[in-house]
């Protein structure tokens, strides 16, 4: 086990956190385990790929467009679909978002085939050294963006008027409604924001590795683990849990061998859940 392994492990965790932020937000505000979250992430990566093929836009030039498209999609999704499902109970939300995930996978397979693809960027293949430790550029970027997003989100939730409206809607939707808050609008904007975050995560994921139509499942599972360990709706918790997850995975791989990478993560997930159901860092802002 050397420093490069540990540092890059933690940085990979930053990517997990970035992917998990949107899930945490939706889980925390809407009480919905969004099984289509992975599809949103992968969808953003495919959108960036398409923009590259159509207009030769690099992943980071395409990113703003992808973010906007994802946010609009998230808003419409909540308005036209999820609101009605959530009124019917949590299981309808799970089945509905699972339906979306199946639909998404089918659409990606039809449009882009089932083969693995990737977003090409020089960022993915460059690195720099700090005192003998080689850092992967793309992971450093992902991690920095994750920290920035989490910080902005935390600030927005705690310090702005919009944030307090969102928190009120999350804590007690019916009272918030009575107080004149348009809960449906707030929820739709939350999903839009979550989709935008998923888009950022997706593009960086696509740059750093390969992806395929069914990559959403493993992304979703790791994101759920990160969200729960960090505390549902706890933005800072999600960030820290993501980094910790990456680090633990790197350590476990060095100690027990790569086969146990998943095992360690999921056992940790289970143990934390049992010992501290509200996550290591509690419920947090929401």
């Amino acid at each position, binding site marked *: 086990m050397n420093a490069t392994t540990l540092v890059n492990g933690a940085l990979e965790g930053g990517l997990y956190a970035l992917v998990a932020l949107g899930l945490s937000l939706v889980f925390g505000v809407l009480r919905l385990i969004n099984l289509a979250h992975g599809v949103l992430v992968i969808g953003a990566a495919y959108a960036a790929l398409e923009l590259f093929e159509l207009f030769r836009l690099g992943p980071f030039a395409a990113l703003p467009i992808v973010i906007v498209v994802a946010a609009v999609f998230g808003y419409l999704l909540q308005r036209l679909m999820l609101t009605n499902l959530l009124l019917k109970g949590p299981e309808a939300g799970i089945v509905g978002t699972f339906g979306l995930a199946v639909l998404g996978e089918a659409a990606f397979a039809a449009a882009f085939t089932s083969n693995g693809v990737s977003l090409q960027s020089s960022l993915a293949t460059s690195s720099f050294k700090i005192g003998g430790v080689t850092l992967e550029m793309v992971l450093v970027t992902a991690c920095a963006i994750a920290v920035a997003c989490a910080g902005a989100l935390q600030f927005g939730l705690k310090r702005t008027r919009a944030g307090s409206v969102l928190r009120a809607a999350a804590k007690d939707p019916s009272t918030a409604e009575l107080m004149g808050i348009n809960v449906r609008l707030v929820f739709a904007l939350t999903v839009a924001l979550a989709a935008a975050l998923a888009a950022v995560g997706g593009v960086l994921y696509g740059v750093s590795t390969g992806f395929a139509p069914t990559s959403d499942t493993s992304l979703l599972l790791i994101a759920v683990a990160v969200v729960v360990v960090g505390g549902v709706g706890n933005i800072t918790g999600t960030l820290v849990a993501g980094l910790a997850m990456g680090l633990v995975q790197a350590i476990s791989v060095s100690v027990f061998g790569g086969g146990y990478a998943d095992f360690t993560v*999921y056992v940790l997930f289970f143990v934390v859940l049992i010992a501290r*159901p509200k996550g290591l860092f509690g419920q947090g802002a929401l």
Partner: protein
Amino acid sequence: MATTALSRAPESVAPALPLRRRGIAALGALVLAGAACLALGEVGGAGVLSLGTTLFAYVALAQAWNILGGFSGQMSLGVGAFVGTSAYTMALTMTRLGWSWLPGMVAGMAVAGSLSALLAFPLLRLKGDYFAVGTLAATLALDAWFDNWSFVNKSMGVSVPIQAVPGQTEMYVIGLVVALFAVGSAIVMRWSTFGVRLLAIREDDLAARLLGVNVSGYRLVVMVVSGMLIGLAGGVFALSLVSFVPDGMFAMSWTIEALVMVVIGGMGTVIGPIVGAVAVYYGITTELANFPTLSLFFEGGLLLVIVRFVPGGLWPFVVRTARRSLEWCGTAIRSARATRPPSS
């Protein structure tokens, strides 16, 4: 944790007839249905036998999930854990100890039940979404463990000895018995004081506790029964699949299938999961497979349409529509009688 605005209204749970009589009537209907299925297997060809076997296993799987999720209100995302342990127990006892399928299946059920009891202790402390996520975590960890465990041949998987697999007709009967057993358990649970207390726990566990219901005890029993039934279904799947690997048997897809079937058919009802299993397995999975490229679009789209437009599931929808039309007929007849002048 706020669920107020978006949670559904508690259903009326008042039993109409003396519970026991309703339960006995339902069991009688079940026996008749079983006999009909048996007859169907007799007259139907190989197609019916193979389709029926899998369908029955899914009915059992969905019903087992429904008992936990629909009756006691604990959404499990860990069906794969019990399918997997049962299937593996069966394969290992059959290959290593030379057992035949019946003791193998019973052993599988027992191990799945024990796992259920073991997991119940930590998991029952969790509520709502956290329980769901906990079952998911346990399943993922088990899958990852089996992938690395050389005793179970790691990710290379195991097989049931193929010469020990019963013929198609026997498989149909085994599947049917497992399905009847699951539906029968659901009936017994639904129409008994046990079931009424479960509903009370589902709707408001604090109130139930204050009324003297042993909440954790009931939940434990339901979880173990559900685990055992999933184990039985897993045994049927193991026999029809013959060879399998951890990633297949502990897969998330078992949960999704069971959950989708129950929600589409009607959660918390006895007949809903059966309707759901038929609609999803026969209607979506089997028939749409003839359109390879479109099947996934159809599947995803149909799920959305059904959860969006048929709230509560297909079975309650059918019952509601039927009752409404009956009532309408009744009113129409009565009003016709009332308005008709006496003839003589």
